[in-house]
């Protein structure tokens, strides 16, 4: 078995990373997972979180806001938006949190507190906030 696999991280606007990776950790909707070469073929959606790519040269991290991952003989992550860890500033992060908050508020209003969609939106917001905790940025917002 090969030690590495082809890994691509693409966003709608550009391709962010294309490399040989040893392992890749992704924040799946149903839980985080780490895939190495020879992983079973899976397609999973992503929640906001940290994507970690371990290559021969070192580890690269990205903040992704959602999208999906396709794992097969090669691995592809199609992220709605992905920001390299280093480029993640307080400002960008606050924007993301604000967006999640606005979405939450809207869902609550529109669906009149129907549990399904509201829970989803609340989870999205929580995930977004958790991302901040992980990378040491302050979400600057009241807790729900």
């Amino acid at each position, binding site marked *: 078995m090969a030690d590495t696999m082809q890994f*691509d991280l*693409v*966003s*709608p*606007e*550009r*391709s962010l990373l294309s490399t040989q990776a040893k392992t890749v950790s992704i924040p*799946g*909707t*149903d839980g985080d997972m780490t895939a190495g070469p020879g992983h*079973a*073929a*899976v*397609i*999973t*959606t992503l929640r906001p979180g940290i994507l970690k790519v371990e290559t021969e040269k070192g580890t690269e991290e990205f903040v992704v806001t959602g*999208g*999906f991952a*396709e794992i*097969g*003989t090669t691995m*592809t992550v*199609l992220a*709605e*938006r992905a920001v390299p860890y280093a480029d993640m500033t307080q400002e960008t992060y606050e924007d993301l949190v604000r967006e999640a908050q606005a979405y939450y508020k809207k869902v609550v209003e529109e669906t009149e507190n129907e549990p399904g969609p509201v829970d989803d939106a609340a989870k999205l917001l929580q995930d977004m906030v958790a991302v901040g905790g992980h990378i040491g940025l302050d979400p600057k917002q009241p807790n729900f």
Partner: protein
Amino acid sequence: MPSLKDLKTRISSVKSTRKITKAMQMVAAAKLRRAQDAAEMARPYSERFNAVLGSLAASVGGSPTAPKLLSGTGKDDVQLLVVMTAERGLCGGFNSSIVKAARAAIAKLKAEGKTVKILTVGKKGREQLAREYGSLFVGHVDLSEVKKIGYADAQSIAKNLLDRFDEGEFDVATIFYAKFETVISQVPTAQQIIPAEFDAAEGDDAGASPLYEYEPGEEAILADLLPRGVSTQIFSALLENAASEQGARMSAMDNATRNAGEMIDKLTIEYNRSRQAVITNELIEIISGAEAL
């Protein structure tokens, strides 16, 4: 016959027009390169996306619980046409060729007795369609403030569409845009985006691809991906359109510059001839004056 002075002013005005068209051509060339790069960079995403969506759709497609975005509402009575054009003119036949394609589609659908609704993206298409089909407009997306098309723009258009679809405003949505082939050829294209349609080729791919496990379930993923698929398709259409617009403008401005050059040559010849005629006239007057003495 125009006087010397008239000719001179005309020559200088055509010269300054040529300068402007030349500058516009160069600007368009630079923008074209950028637009092409953007379209190029967006390609891997949309290709992968469509492949995955295609294989998913193939496996879920037949089931009665398949999302409406895939299977449709079961009718095609109300058709929404999304006409994407440029915000600016002076780009040759770019806008009119898209509008022409849309017009043909509208006429055809109307003849079939369908209800047609129009959503315009870009000012130029709206202006051209307003006189004939103004009553069919249901909305307009203004991109004139947008310098560089981002995914967010596509997302907001997609959201607009999806909201309308959820409200049951239409059954089928088709986008009209110009596909970028080369700098001199842009092909007006109609593409149905709701319900989603996949190329047969991608369907074949699906058969060959490994059997995936889906997390969460297949249908949950599909329900999540389909709306994104709409954004993705709109995004690539917007990018193609942007590249086409600049390509069309570039060749239109190239033509204009060349025409201006020819006109200047012609006017200069005329100017020189009439200048010589004036000199000859003056000489004749002087000579005949001298002879009369």
